């Protein structure tokens, strides 16, 4: 489904992604973990088409895509951002935000689709004509997910979708994402610094440091401690250490 080969991204003289390769089969989800500056979000932005200063090979559904994407690409691939406070237009109602992708792609039945999209992410119909600042963080992230899904994409790129949320809301959003993937046979790429979140949602995990993907392993191997790279082991031990409640 998604095939990334030798992806390189540079900002000026600074190469922030140094030859990253991975594959994600259709209907699967792949997690990328790493610390800030590891290049994990840059990989996602290159995949999504937001950053077009990359070299290498990216293919979606066997079709190679270039730095410039056509409209059909954006129907297939969508993204959810980290900060639900920043990813919704502050002067637009939820109705307007959700209708925008439908208008751009010329998809009809706007009324019915918006109603269904809100129901799918378990938001009451009453939020439809509210502004983002009138909603809670969790509700906003649900709106962002609804917007990403309204044009029925096949791939969802998730950039730290729960790290700005409270843990109780995080649980709700993670459950929602798991359910949606099941129902819609979506393919996910999830970027996060939280190993537990990544392992919860993704059967396969890639670990990045300094622009390189130093290890790819299954979530079960990560849980069991069968790691090969010292950085993976370090991240794991920190995460496990915090988990053990005294």
């Amino acid at each position, binding site marked *: 489904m998604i095939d990334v080969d030798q992806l390189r991204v540079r900002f000026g003289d600074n190469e922030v992604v140094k030859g990253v390769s991975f594959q994600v089969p259709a209907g699967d989800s792949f997690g990328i973990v790493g*610390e*800030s500056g590891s290049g994990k979000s840059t990989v996602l932005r290159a995949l999504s088409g937001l950053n077009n200063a990359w070299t290498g090979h990216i293919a979606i559904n066997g079709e190679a895509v270039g730095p410039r994407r056509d409209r059909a690409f954006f129907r297939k691939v969508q993204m959810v951002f980290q900060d639900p406070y920043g990813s919704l237009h502050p002067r637009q109602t939820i109705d307007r935000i959700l209708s925008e992708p439908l208008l751009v792609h010329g998809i009809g039945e706007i009324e019915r689709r918006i109603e269904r999209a809100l129901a799918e992410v378990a938001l009451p119909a009453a939020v439809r004509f509210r502004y983002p600042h009138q909603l809670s*963080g969790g509700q906003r992230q649900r709106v962002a997910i609804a917007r990403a899904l309204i044009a029925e994409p096949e791939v969802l790129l998730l950039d730290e979708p729960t790290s700005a949320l*409270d*843990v*109780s809301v*995080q*649980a*709700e959003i*993670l*459950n929602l994402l*798991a359910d949606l993937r099941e129902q819609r046979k979506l393919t996910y790429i999830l970027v996060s*610094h*939280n*190993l*537990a*979140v990544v*392992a*919860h949602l993704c059967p396969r995990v890639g670990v990045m440091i300094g622009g390189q993907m130093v290890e790819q392993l299954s*979530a079960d191997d*990560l*849980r069991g401690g069968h790691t090969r790279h010292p950085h993976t082991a*370090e*991240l*794991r031990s*920190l*995460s*496990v*250490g*915090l*988990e*053990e*409640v*005294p």
Partner: protein
Amino acid sequence: MLVDIQNLRIAFETRTSVFEAVRGVSLNIGTEKLGIVGESGSGKSLTARALMRLLPTNARVTADRLTFDGVDILKADERAMLRIRGKRAGFILQDPKYSLNPVMTIGRQVTEAWRTHKGGGRKEAKEAAIDLLAQVRIREPRRVYDLYPHEVSGGMGQRIMIAMMLAPDPQLLIADEPTSALDATVQAEILRLMEDLVSQRGMGLLLISHDLPLVSHFCDRVAVMYAGRVVEELAAGDLSKAQHPYTRGLLNCLPSLIHPKPRLPVLNRDEAWLKS
């Protein structure tokens, strides 16, 4: 007792309504590490800010008792507050990016902090500042002294903030989400540093965070706040024996690396939690 809070209430008045954000919080802090945990809007930061009287002007604060080392915060004049703020209590905020002056070198900012409280000559203050930077385990304090805030990492910035707060030898360190903008590896280092400094210098620590497991690892006692009240207070070691359904819910809804859950339990908020 360093800090004594009895029945603290903080309300915000708007044109049309009154919203009570903190509804009767009682806490004691001695020479120990107390963690306050809660979700956004639980009133945990407001409680700490009320202690330093750093609340917005439309906040109405009432309490049966609100004292810092015997000083009544509700009645103290602005000069007494200045002596407490930054001198007897240090305040560390979430993101050092916004707390450091971007156009002043780090050395100058630390030196200023030192001289404001201790006085003394320029040379003496510089040596003291470098010593403080070394105390927060910055490897090359003399080099860092001449850098600007944008030239250092987030973890380094937080170390510098801690160094500045340590300058006047405070009795209490209040840290409001000090590591939530930092990476996991750096987070552990900063918390360990704070832990060591607090026990070496015999200070009190008030650590405010949304991360219950994290707090329980670095504090002696944990107070769990929900909707403006402390719903449970327990020794950090007894977290697994927590009684309140909210505390238990917070722990259960975390995804786990070692104990995978097919589906995360969701917190069902009970109306009764708002009352008790």
